[in-house]
């Protein structure tokens, strides 16, 4: 018993002792237990020669920490945007005492601001991003950043630093191309208590900029000292010179600070924000739309814009339309009368003959709002002088005229998109707009970035251009400096032609592959996190193909099935040709860093697979994020399909030799040229001597030569000699670009041989066009037939829920077509083989190269050497997907054969014969589950099920597979609107893809046992449905005219989520609680992911006070009749500038007072007339209020 008690006591003592030791150790530690951080490694490595260094994670606000007196503390600031102080009051007090008592503190980067937080320095430094190389101001975009020493004090910090600049007083330790880094410096006022040791030194593209603001400052505070350096030296910079300088400077700072020991705080790893869980087919991006160019009223009416553009995009799921309100000269079509109560700005430009007038804007906005679309006015630039006051007043005037929701209602704009704006840290721009349109959004796109309070940022395609090259757009690793959280919106490039309207700012030159690359890159970073994109387009008539791609990739963001030739990103494409004109092309410019093939290759891809033509590489992204670059994707096959002909007999009657010199008929001289010269046997037979980008009528830009091309493989030899300036020309056949060719006066003139495949012997048009630059002479242009087999690829269905790559091959023996069909978000494809002609005895052997795969099983236990039923292949590498191959249609004597590690099929083709084989890639190990059903799944991909929406416009679809799949339905007729689709009880509003022969393709998700319901036609807009800008944002369960369960799938950021109910109402509850934020039949909800039960009813007690319109993130909006109060509560966590109030339009009686806000007098708004003021008053009462709880009081 005693022993037991003793043992127990000993145990307790041990535990207590260990606990005490732990406690003491914890107290002695200077802060939280160190944990791995992204920056800790390099700093630890750089400071390994400094004694007693201890790495730790910088504590968060509210976290306890200790610093030992007499030691040093080195803080590495965070590499991200931060607002306010990093420290709470207790932490500030503790650090201040640490310095006061003799500690030495070194602050790098944004942490330099701590000197103000600790009240060591009264002058607050400015934090922000230093950026260079993110817009078209430069071709290089390289910046090096550091310090220029201006004081002889603290020499130990600088003595013996490795040379990084010609000037001994300058040390550069950060930078890149492009360059984006945090900088904290005293740009407004110099430090008052500290001694400036160095100012900022910046070198842009090798040229020194003027010395900057104080960047390295020293303070003596109490018995301690502080050193603040507003830029973090980059210890891992790819430039070894900068890296060495950074390490040396950091070591000197550490030695300067170190006492008994040195503690280094590095930033905590940024938390990874989880992507909200979306419904299976919910769009990854909630908003997309097109930018409508300035309206040339002589050529185009608003109803034509609606019919041609708006409705087409709407059918494809667009919910946004941006109107280009200013013309090429920066003028709008909204005149400003001299006697207007809002005094006109002298520099205002409002009389453009080409542009969107008030009436045109109102007409289009009404049409768009009727379809639950949002309309934003694009101002590039604001049509007034560059002064801040002029710009602000002009924006106020345009807001009053075009966006006043109280006077214009549905005809008002939903916001403005600005291209250039003043540094607006207080939100003045937002103030101008929200006095008329409380819910409207103000967007600012592109570089240069600066504070923009209350608005939304968008990246802009123009910033993808180089100073000397016009090709714009951002994709891949090209100028990757627009993070998704800071830039939730994007203006993407779809202008095929170079837009030459603005001198010095030529932009455009997009292509299908560039459209896909931009969209994928943009959406991938923003999937499920809100935001949107809109496209800059040529007029529809200029490049109709662009519309197909834009609508296709926007309909199914990231997941879209596409077929694209590599015109922009190909190894011999336009961007590569342009880059070759530069001395040092910037990294990532050509293809955004992705591996590329030749221009002529047509790539079929979706988010899972990429096939570079049937004979090309097959790549697989196991995460389904459409990443197919080297090192990102799995290479399933280097060359997927090879066809071999044998057994045929040559046809002497079809043999011909051809060599054509297109210059043999002489040259057409200078003068009297239009932009395009057509050369034909029946008309002009001479090719112009010179082609020029911009010299009409002296020389044309394009020559189109009719060519009676025999089928086969040809080689075109061309010699272009630069005449005036350098440039880029393209060679195309029937519009399909074959090669982009640079020409330059300084480059040697060399013949270039271009492969030309001709698979149909009709009259073809060979086109040579100068895309950009000066002029060039065509010194040689001839074609020689070199081979019997010609293979041409085309995008039969370019982009969307479905895409079809078509390759036609013709020789003297045969003519056949290979189609590859796939659909969005589908890891597989179907290969169709059509034979149109074959000589007698001809046989074809097709070999599918699938290295690493082995035969596992087949459906009916067939031998691998004679396969006519689906079978399973599995890769030796367990990370690679299983592959189910399903022969869907074979002729009587055809069969697939697995032998010696390869899959082959031998056939004797006959005219009219057709074979179909499906390939389905599955999660590793799951192929067995799919094997019995792969045939059905792939057959549905090949031939979408036709669905008749009967008289009511409704249909149901019952699945018969035990596995969840997505399938495409073919619905007859034009819908005029998106479809309402119910999957697993949730209704979503979904765009569709146009079918060339009429009808629409709609993709749906079929879960096992679920009955999918589809509703189309006008009735979609008559039901309870998502409100403006919410079509791709919401799913509704059990929607009735008076209720629905609403699931907000992701935040919108552009407009609050809303539901339009199918009936009138005057009272709303959300989850049973009264909710008074509605307008007409539209109920608005907080802009955050949530599932809410919304019910409406008509009480008939007169109009109840409620919020009609606001952008405030209301969490409570309730009228309390007992107190005659409308209570508005906003989320206090909002990042809105404290000086910037919210506004709202209230319906119902006029309130008497507002607690936490004010009623805005209409007189202060300077409306154009008393009549308009009365109209505004009839539209509701405008109030301003601040975040927190606001009480709007009503009188008796």
């Amino acid at each position, binding site marked *: 018993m005693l022993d037991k008690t003793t043992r127990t006591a000993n145990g307790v003592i041990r535990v207590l002792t260990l606990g005490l030791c732990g406690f003491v150790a914890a107290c002695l530690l200077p802060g939280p237990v160190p944990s791995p951080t992204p920056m800790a490694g390099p700093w630890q490595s750089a400071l390994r020669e400094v004694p007693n260094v201890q790495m730790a994670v910088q504590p968060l606000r509210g976290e306890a920490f200790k610093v030992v007196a007499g030691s040093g503390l080195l803080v590495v600031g965070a590499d991200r945007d931060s607002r306010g102080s990093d420290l709470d009051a207790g932490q500030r007090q503790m650090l201040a005492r640490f310095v006061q008592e003799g500690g030495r503190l070194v602050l790098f980067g944004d942490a330099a601001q701590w000197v103000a937080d600790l009240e060591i320095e009264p002058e607050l430094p400015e934090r922000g991003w230093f950026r260079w190389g993110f817009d078209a101001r430069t071709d290089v975009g390289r910046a090096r950043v550091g310090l220029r020493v201006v004081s002889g004090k603290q020499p130990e910090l600088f003595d013996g630093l490795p040379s990084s600049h010609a000037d001994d007083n300058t040390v550069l330790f950060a930078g890149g191309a492009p360059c984006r880094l945090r900088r904290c410096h005293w740009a407004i006022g110099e430090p008052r208590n500290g001694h400036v040791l160095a100012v900022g030194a910046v070198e842009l593209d090798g040229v020194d900029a003027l010395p900057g603001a104080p960047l390295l400052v020293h303070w003596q505070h109490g018995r301690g000292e502080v050193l603040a350096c507003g830029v973090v030296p980059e210890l891992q910079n790819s430039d070894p010179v900068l890296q060495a300088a950074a390490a040396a400077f950091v070591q000197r700072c550490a030695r300067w600070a170190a006492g008994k020991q040195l503690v280094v705080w590095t930033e905590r790893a940024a938390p990874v924000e989880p992507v909200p869980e979306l419904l299976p087919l919910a769009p990854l991006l909630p908003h997309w739309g097109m930018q409508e160019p300035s309206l040339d009223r002589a050529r185009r009416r608003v109803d034509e814009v609606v019919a041609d553009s708006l409705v087409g995009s709407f059918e494809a799921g667009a919910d946004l339309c941006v109107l280009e309100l200013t013309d090429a000269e920066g003028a709008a079509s909204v005149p400003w009368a001299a006697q207007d109560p809002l005094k006109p700005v002298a520099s205002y430009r409002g009389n453009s003959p080409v542009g969107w007038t008030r009436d045109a804007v109102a007409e289009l906005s009404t049409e768009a709002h009727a379809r639950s679309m949002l309309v934003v006015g694009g101002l590039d630039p604001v049509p007034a002088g560059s002064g801040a006051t002029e710009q602000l007043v002009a924006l106020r005037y345009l807001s009053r005229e075009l966006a006043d929701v109280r006077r214009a209602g549905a005809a008002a704009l939903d916001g403005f998109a600005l291209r250039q704006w003043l540094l607006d840290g207080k939100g003045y721009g937002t103030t101008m707009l929200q006095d008329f349109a409380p819910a409207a959004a103000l967007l600012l796109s592109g570089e240069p970035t600066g504070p923009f309070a209350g608005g939304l940022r968008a990246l802009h395609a123009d910033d993808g251009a180089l100073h000397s090259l016009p090709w714009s757009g951002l994709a891949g690793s090209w100028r990757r400096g627009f993070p998704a959280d800071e830039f939730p919106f994007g203006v993407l490039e779809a202008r095929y032609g170079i837009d030459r309207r603005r001198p010095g700012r030529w932009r455009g030159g997009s292509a299908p592959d560039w459209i896909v690359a931009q969209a994928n890159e943009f959406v991938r970073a923003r999937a499920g996190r809100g935001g949107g994109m809109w496209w800059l387009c040529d007029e529809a008539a200029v490049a109709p193909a662009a519309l197909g791609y834009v609508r296709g990739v926007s309909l199914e963001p990231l997941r879209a099935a596409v077929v694209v030739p590599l015109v922009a990103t190909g190894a011999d494409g336009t961007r590569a040709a342009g880059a070759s004109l530069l001395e040092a092309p910037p990294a990532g410019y050509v293809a955004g860093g992705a591996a590329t093939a030749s221009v002529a290759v047509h790539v079929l891809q979706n988010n899972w697979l990429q096939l570079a033509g049937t004979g090309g590489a097959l790549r697989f992204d196991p995460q389904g994020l459409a990443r197919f670059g080297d090192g990102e994707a799995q290479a399933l096959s280097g060359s997927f399909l090879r066809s071999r002909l*044998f*057994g045929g007999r040559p046809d*002497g009657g*079809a*043999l*011909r*030799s051809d060599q054509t010199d297109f210059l*043999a008929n002489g040259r057409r001289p200078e003068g009297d040229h239009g932009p395009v010269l057509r050369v034909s046997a029946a008309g002009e037979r001479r090719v112009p001597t010179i082609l020029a980008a911009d010299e009409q009528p002296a020389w044309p830009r394009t020559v189109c030569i009719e060519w009676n091309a025999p089928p086969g493989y040809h080689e075109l030899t061309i010699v272009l000699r630069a005449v005036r300036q350098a440039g880029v020309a393209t060679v195309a056949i029937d519009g399909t670009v074959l090669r982009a060719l640079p020409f330059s006066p300084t480059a040697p003139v060399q013949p270039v041989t271009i492969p030309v495949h001709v698979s149909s012997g009709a009259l073809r048009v060979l086109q040579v066009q100068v895309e950009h630059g000066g002029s060039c002479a065509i010194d040689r242009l001839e074609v020689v037939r*070199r081979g019997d087999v010609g293979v041409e690829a085309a995008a039969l269905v370019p982009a969307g829920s479905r895409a079809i790559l078509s390759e036609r091959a013709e020789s003297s*023996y045969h003519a056949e077509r290979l189609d590859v069909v796939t659909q969005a978000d589908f890891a597989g494809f179907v290969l169709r083989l059509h034979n149109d002609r074959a000589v007698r005895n001809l046989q074809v052997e097709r070999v599918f190269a699938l290295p690493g795969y082995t035969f596992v099983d087949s459906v009916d236990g067939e031998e691998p050497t004679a396969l006519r039923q689906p079978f399973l292949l599995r890769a030796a590498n367990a990370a690679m997907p299983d592959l189910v191959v399903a022969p869907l249609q074979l002729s009587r004597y055809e069969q697939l054969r697995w032998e010696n590690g390869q899959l082959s099929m031998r056939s004797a083709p006959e005219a009219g014969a057709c074979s179909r084989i499906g390939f389905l890639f599955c999660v590793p190990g799951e192929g067995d589950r799919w094997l019995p059903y792969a045939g059905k799944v792939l057959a549905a991909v090949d031939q979408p099920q036709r669905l008749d929406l009967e008289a009511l416009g409704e249909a149901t679809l019952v699945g018969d597979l035990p596995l969840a799949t997505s399938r495409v339905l073919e619905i007859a007729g034009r819908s005029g609107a998106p479809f309402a689709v119910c999957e697993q009880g949730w209704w979503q509003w979904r765009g569709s893809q146009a079918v060339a022969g009429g009808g629409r393709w709609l993709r749906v998700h079929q879960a096992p046992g679920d009955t999918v319901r589809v509703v189309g036609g006008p009735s979609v807009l008559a039901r309870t449905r998502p409100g403006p800008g919410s079509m791709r944002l919401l799913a509704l369960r059990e929607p009735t005219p008076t209720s629905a369960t609403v699931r907000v799938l992701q935040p919108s950021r552009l407009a609050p989520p809303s539901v339009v109910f199918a009936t009138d109402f005057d009272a709303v509850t959300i989850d049973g609680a009264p909710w008074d934020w509605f307008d007409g039949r539209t109920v608005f909800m907080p802009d955050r992911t949530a599932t809410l039960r919304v019910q409406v009813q008509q009480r008939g007690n007169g109009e109840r006070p409620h919020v009609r319109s606001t952008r405030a993130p209301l969490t409570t909006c309730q009228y309390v009749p007992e107190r005659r109060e409308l209570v508005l509560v906003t989320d206090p966590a909002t990042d809105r500038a404290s000086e910037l109030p919210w506004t709202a339009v209230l319906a119902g009686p006029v309130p008497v007072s507002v607690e936490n806000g004010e009623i805005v007098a209409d007189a202060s708004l300077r409306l154009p007339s008393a009549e308009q003021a009365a109209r505004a008053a009839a539209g509701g009462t405008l109030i301003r209020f601040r975040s927190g709880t606001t009480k709007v009081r009503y009188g008796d």
Partner: protein
Amino acid sequence: MAIDRGWWAVALSAIGIAALVFPWLPGPWPNPLPQGELDLAAPAVVHSLRDAAAAVDAACVQGDLAAFTAAVTPEHRAALDQSLGPLDRVLDAAALRELGAARAEWLDADGLAGVVVGERAAIAVRRPDGDGAQVLKFQWDGQRLRFDGSLRAAAVRDAAAAQAAVEAAVARR
């Protein structure tokens, strides 16, 4: 029998003159076919073309590669090589026999149009069953007419279209 010295003198003079003259004679002879549109009613012209085509046919039937090479243009020979490439075959006697004799007989068909431009000539004849026209091309190499290929012109239905086809066949080469 003694040889007359006068004859020696004549013979030597003739050789001398020949030695002076022959180097100045043109190597290739000009194209004997009349330039411009062919008079298809003139049997001599069609016979010349037919002879050239028949030489090719004969070489094919006999599988005589050397004769075939001599009877066709190098470009046509190259085209045949191209045609056999996809089958992994080369031009040999067997391939020639498979090509068969199918050229000369075209020239017995109803002629639609013909043209001679420089060294090149082309003739279009009506194909049976309304299947357009067959265009045969020839080239004068300075010594003889060589066959330069044959092609179907499915869209050609009348003389005007045939004229355009033959002009295209000889143009811009």
